[in-house]
């Protein structure tokens, strides 16, 4: 099933690419041989044909894993994390992120979770800020 959906989405994206490549405003480029629209159009066209093949080929999608909810939870937490990095600052949001991800697993003790979630981000923060001179995002906090 997933394979069919994938091929349909691929087909749609390729169609959008071809359509928008067709609408490139070429007026100010002049004649430059094969224009900027040439390659995307060809690639889009090939991709449409291939995705049609994929749609009609035998689906070998892996059986649904019952643990997929953990992955979805991770993706969700990751999305929130990226969103709050700029708002709260790198260090505090990374600590929260690490703790939330580790809380998904029941295996580690609460103490380990807290210690690890503070030390690892702090280490990265110090390393990148003071040794690699990367200015990490700051927000309300650091």
């Amino acid at each position, binding site marked *: 099933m997933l394979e069919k959906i994938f091929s349909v989405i691929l087909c749609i994206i390729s169609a959008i690419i071809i359509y928008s490549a067709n609408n*490139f405003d070429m007026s100010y*480029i002049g004649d430059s041989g094969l224009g900027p629209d040439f390659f995307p159009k060809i690639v889009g066209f090939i991709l449409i044909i291939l995705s049609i093949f994929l749609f009609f080929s035998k689906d070998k999608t892996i059986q649904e894993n019952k643990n997929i909810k953990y992955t979805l939870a991770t993706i969700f937490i990751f999305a929130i994390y990226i969103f709050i990095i700029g708002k709260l600052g790198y260090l505090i949001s990374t600590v929260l992120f690490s703790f939330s991800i580790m809380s998904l697993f029941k295996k580690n003790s609460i103490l380990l979770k807290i210690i690890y979630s503070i030390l690892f981000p702090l280490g990265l923060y110090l390393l990148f800020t003071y040794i690699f001179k990367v200015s990490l995002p700051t927000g309300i906090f650091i």
Partner: protein
Amino acid sequence: MVQHLLDGLLTALQLGNFIYLILGVTGGIIIGALPGLTATMGVAILLPFTFGMDAVTGLIMLVGIYVGAIYGGSISAILLNTPGTPASAATCFDGYPLVKQGHPAKALSVSTIASACGGLISCIALVTISPFLAKFALRFSAPEYFALALFGLTIIASISAENFLKGIIAGVIGLLISTFGMDYITSYPRFTFDVVDLLNGFSVIPVLIGLFAVSEVFNQIELLIDEKEIKTNITMDKSYMNLKELKHCLPTIIKSGVIGTFIGSIPGAGADIAAFVCYNEAKRSNKDEKFGKGSLIGISAPEAGNNGVTGGALVPLLTLGVPGDAVAAVLLGALIIQGLTPGPLLFEQNPEIVYGLFSSMILGNILLLIIGLAGIKFYSRIVEIPKTLMIPSILMLSTIGSYSMNNSLFDVGVTFAFGIIGYIMGKIKMPSSPIVLSVILGPMLETNLRKAVLMYEGSYSFLWTRPITIVFLILSLLSVYSALRKKK
């Protein structure tokens, strides 16, 4: 050339560089040994640590990680019967049986020696062939580069033998991704949808951190929930490989090292393929050996083969700017970040970098031998590191890594998005390394085709009037033909 090599050796031996090389090799071994962390992932997530270093030091460390990680995969293949990297899948066949018979130290020492020998053989090829190839490649112009990129892309298709169609689709998706951002020739902003961050297209590093690190984490989480703690419980019999056994394996090791180097130097084909090819070749030529029951030849063939790839993969990377496999693609990204353009000119303009790289490759393999043999006692500890700590760590490293290249949260978003894409692709069994290779080869293909057409004023006669171009085009046809025939 000898002079350059000696200079390079001195550079690599400078205290700072040498320490980074040791760190790289050791870190690579650990990453490779942890099941689920591949060599590509290791180089991708540790790449940001080299941004702040100068070019030579950074590359030396990355080469160390590369060499170490390809070898490290064999540790968990042997001790746990789970390959640490796909390149070590073939090592399980004979490595694990030998452990069950109570000889883990012997199995590990065989794989260490074979890996280091394979790596050194590939270094010899790298050092001797590359300068000539680079000189030859100086004659290349747009039509040749176009045909070369096309050849690289057809190889991607033919190595996806398992699923030809999906391999090609992944490759074409990569080509599509490469068209985002400003067009190289006319500077026309393509598919940027008025997003400023997209003007330069998707940066390669965030894309591959997403595809190789984040998506792998998403996959691992599902498996992890039901997994029990790994306990190796291995009774260590202290005997290492002895001289007689080494003599017995040496022909296989040399042969596999050469095959691995050759496979590595073909754009697109990587260590996993080399390992299987070498294993099968060893099986074919050693009829009286008992494979699958702990044969030492069965361990040394894939290990010499996959480490042979490391040097081989750098040949097209340095001389032509075409990566030999996914890890080499990451290294290409590293070179570009440092403001260098891999290709024939690199040998003339930055010999210190090229030869520094060569020397660190040679030293790296020697270190691999020393660290590898000394570390055998500790390996069972590494493979017991709980994955529940690795998962958040990899995500944090991925985030900070994709951010710190351009100080851009947009790039973190790109990593996230490609993590999800890679995860879905994994579910439908579509390989993700073709995407990375074609993201890199795409601009090369497109720009050079268009330049060639401009050069010939709208005519396509360059396709059949330039000998080197013709050779590459014929090779491309052959590789597609052989892939299609293999399928039937």
